[in-house]
């Protein structure tokens, strides 16, 4: 009952998200469920995610998780996306169990982005 529902990471990512926005001419994944909406947009160069940006409508955990994903995968090879697991984010952001469904929306968005990149590169 008493603990702050938001840990410092959530508070920081929510207050100052450095990866919020669009990627002009990039490729995007989008997913919507549980009343949440998340969009991830990437600029892919040489199999690497050069830029990753998010837009999100949802609770602070969802917004912070989207920011976390961007921080995590920017600069990574595209293949890393496949290894995305919600577990680490759930832990880093201390997401309460009852919000698991919302974070899965993020997983779906990451998948959606992965597929979009695939479609782009395999004609």
């Amino acid at each position: 009952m008493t603990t702050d529902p938001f840990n410092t990471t959530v508070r920081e990512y929510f207050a100052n998200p450095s990866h919020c926005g669009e990627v002009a001419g990039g490729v995007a994944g989008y997913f919507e469920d549980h009343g949440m909406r998340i969009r991830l947009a990437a600029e892919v160069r040489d199999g690497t995610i050069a830029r990753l940006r998010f837009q999100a409508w949802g609770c602070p955990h969802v917004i912070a998780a989207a920011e976390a994903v961007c921080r995590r995968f920017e600069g990574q090879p595209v293949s890393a996306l496949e290894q995305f697991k919600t577990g680490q984010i759930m832990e880093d952001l201390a997401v309460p169990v009852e919000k698991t469904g919302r974070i899965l929306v993020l997983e779906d968005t990451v998948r959606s982005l992965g597929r979009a990149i695939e479609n782009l590169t395999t004609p």
Partner: protein
Amino acid sequence: MVTNADPVYLDYAATTPLDPRVAERMRAVQSSAYFNPASNHFAGRLSATVVDEAAVQLAALLNVDPTSLLWTSGATESNNLAILGGAKQREHRGKHLVTMRTEHKAVVDVFRALEKQGFEIAWLAPDADGRLPLERFEAALRDDTQLASILHINNETGVVQDIEGLGAICRSHDVLFHVDGAQSAGKVPVDLAHLPVDLMSLTAHKFYGPKGVGALFVADGTPIAPQMFGGGQQRRLRPGTLPVDLIAGLGEAASVASSCIDKDLLHLAALRDQLWKGIRDVEGLQRNGQDRGGYPGILNVGVQDVEGESLLLALEPLCVATGSACNSRSQEPSSVLRALGRSDLEAQSAIRFSLGRQTTSAEIELAVSAYRNAVKKLRDLAPERVR
């Protein structure tokens, strides 16, 4: 957290700080009259006198006889005692009870308990502005209706019900009339010598008195069954050692209120207008409750397509409420706002600003910009809807 440093407290409907005069009175009683008012010695009688004086103070605020007041631990207990105690005492009159969907949980849950015990409850809906039309109320009354309970001032929206009109209908139908006055007593004029009310609950901590003490007004001759049993205090209707300092604090808060209410209301109305003017042009803003005539200490607004929890966090260091004051932790959309016709999505974005005696114009200014910025920020973060 940095934000913890300077909270801007705009949650006076949840609870208020102690008025300095109340705190001082309580300290005096704690050091010189901490005795058990039931004790059969002069020290005990000293404390009993303190209790009597507090009853006179509260009675003056409500314009009633001091003997018509029972001390309780708060409005929750008063509501329980009034509704359970009233309904059970009058079971012979029938098992039909009337209340509203926009009541506080401390009323709703009591009726739910009675429902399980075989009582039948009419849960009346308000109009879109939150008010209960008198005709709707009267139409709900049946021959076996024996008790009605209506919230005077809604804790989420500030909507004010027509207690006088509703009470008159109760009188003409021999229906016991309980009013949850937790948000009205000590905050707006309440003249129980003239209002047709049989039972009224109140709690000190909503008007600058101490937490943990409240009262139930019981009109002369109104039968209620006790819900606790014990040492015989308070005519056996509510036993337990009287917390003489808390009662003195409640009395003092009542006395302060008696002299401040008019000034307070002007102060609140000015600030509420400042707040409303500052935010009303925000796109998609929706005011929940009465446009005019509501309690000026509360402004409840929803806003389209903004997520409530994020809004609340973005509003820090403002301390404001979403959902009900008294158990805001629940994530369910407010049933009060649902009853006003709001969708779940609309209800979840609702913010209740509640102002008080210490609120300043500078704080309101801060609240205005915080609100505008928060809505803008969250909208900027959000993706377009599915394309």
